């Protein structure tokens, strides 16, 4: 539906007519979304339009009232027990705007905790993996530091490494650069770009328009609980007819924060 690819079984995430309300407030009003394995999809749209809620549906942090959600072969909407939802969350990584590292643990222990305690992975192998991931996010020398000693950008890169240590099948990024100082945004985007180049299926909610344009296979525009339009970055950012999207995209990338900091100075 979203790409020319005929193989629907390549879809790793599929949302069909998903409706969700919190009490009286309708937050999602019929979301259809298909994401293929290895794709990078950016979700953009005004604040409060339901972007985070879409991500939270995908890893079963919230359950919609109706609609089908299939993630990596699992019918998420049909999971009834918390233990089943936990099984799903082990396979879907999520990184939040507030990096939420565990302040009482070193950087290395932050990464090692979940795989060893939750997945029961071998400790030595996990430490080795954690060091490789730290190298990947360019923080090898911070392995023994505590989160409080790191900058926001560094903490967010550790949070990404922590999610990757679970060896997830896809990773959800929810505005991971929104809380950062402008100088440190670039270093985090660098890490995500590398990850996408390595073929990790990624769904990003982001306000970094230039970055979204550069790395996405598909861009999705949400407004008021609906997907207003989706397509290639070229379509959404340059040739859309929709005045709302034009206004939104123009308004954001016109500002000083739109530019991708290409990681110079890392």
């Amino acid at each position, binding site marked *: 539906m979203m790409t020319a690819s005929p193989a629907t079984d390549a879809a790793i995430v599929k949302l069909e007519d998903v409706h969700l309300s919190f009490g009286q407030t309708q937050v999602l009003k019929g979301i259809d979304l298909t994401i293929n394995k290895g794709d990078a999809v950016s979700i953009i749209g005004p604040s409060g339009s339901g972007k985070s809620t879409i991500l939270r549906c995908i890893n079963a942090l919230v359950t919609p009232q109706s609609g089908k959600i299939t993630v990596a072969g699992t019918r998420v909407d049909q999971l009834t027990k918390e233990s089943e939802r*936990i099984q799903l969350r*082990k396979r879907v990584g*999520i990184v*939040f705007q*507030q990096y*939420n*590292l565990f302040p009482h*643990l070193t950087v290395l222990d932050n990464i090692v*905790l979940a795989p060893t305690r939750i997945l029961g992975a071998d400790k030595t192998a996990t430490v080795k993996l954690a060091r490789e991931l730290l190298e990947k996010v360019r923080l090898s020398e911070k392995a023994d530091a505590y989160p409080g000693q790191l900058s926001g950008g560094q903490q967010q890169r550790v949070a990404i490494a922590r999610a990757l240590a679970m060896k997830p099948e896809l990773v959800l990024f929810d505005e991971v650069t929104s809380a950062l100082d402008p100088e440190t945004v670039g270093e985090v985007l660098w890490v995500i770009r590398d990850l996408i180049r390595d073929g990790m299926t990624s769904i990003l909610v982001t306000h970094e328009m230039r970055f979204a344009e550069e790395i996405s296979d598909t861009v999705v525009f949400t407004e008021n609980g609906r997907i207003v339009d989706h397509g290639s970055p070229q379509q959404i950012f340059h040739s859309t007819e929709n005045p709302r999207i034009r206004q939104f995209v123009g308004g954001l990338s016109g500002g000083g924060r739109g530019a991708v900091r290409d990681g110079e100075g890392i």
Partner: protein
Amino acid sequence: MSMAVTQTPKKSSRVLRYIGFVAMPLLVVVWSLIDLSLGKELVEWIPYLASGFSMNILITICAVTLGTTAGVVLGLMQLAPFWFVRLPAQIYVQIFRNAPALVLIFATTYIFPFEIVMFGNYLPFPDWVKAVIGLAILSSAYIAEITRGAVLSIPTTQWEATKGLGFSRLQALRFVILPQCVRRSLPPWMNVASSMAMGTSLASLVGVHELMHAATDASTAVRRLDFTIIAYVVVMAAFFTLCYPIARLTRRLEQRFNAG
């Protein structure tokens, strides 16, 4: 301003340490040397007082250990998602948190039998154990509140992070939330442990042979006002040395957890 605030407790603890470890022992020694007959009485009674004091140490350690264990469990129960777990814990805590220590010690002493039957054997149920239970009930209620407060003080984003990584609620508590609670709970925990140490003296009122009881025995036997005074100075110094290690231990632990 903030300097003054941080210095005050340090200064007062130095004064306390001075009184406890220097002034009171010095008073006892000098007085005993000036009046050697008093010194002789005191030396004779010291072993008896010491045996009483060992009972205070024993009751404190048992009551605080039991109370802490039960209190942490009760505190977590108060936060459970199921009302049938939450409610009993809430009722227990509300009742016992407001009970005076002396009432609890009297209650446990006179409610429990003096021996219990287990597998056909009669096991004695000594009074000091009943005092332990009384104080453990009280401290468990306090520590339940401390635990509950500490868990609630952890930002919800920490729970969110664990959820995203596939932790169950209990795993999140065990590996992420409770370790962060330990440091926050140490200062109030110390207060509870110290009041329990002080509270052990109440056990004398139900006939447990502890330091207060021993000092009363001694002063009744000797029948000298100066001896009575000096004996109770010894008692005060002893209670001070019982609380001091608790404070030191807490500070040491706090520093260790401060690394984070």
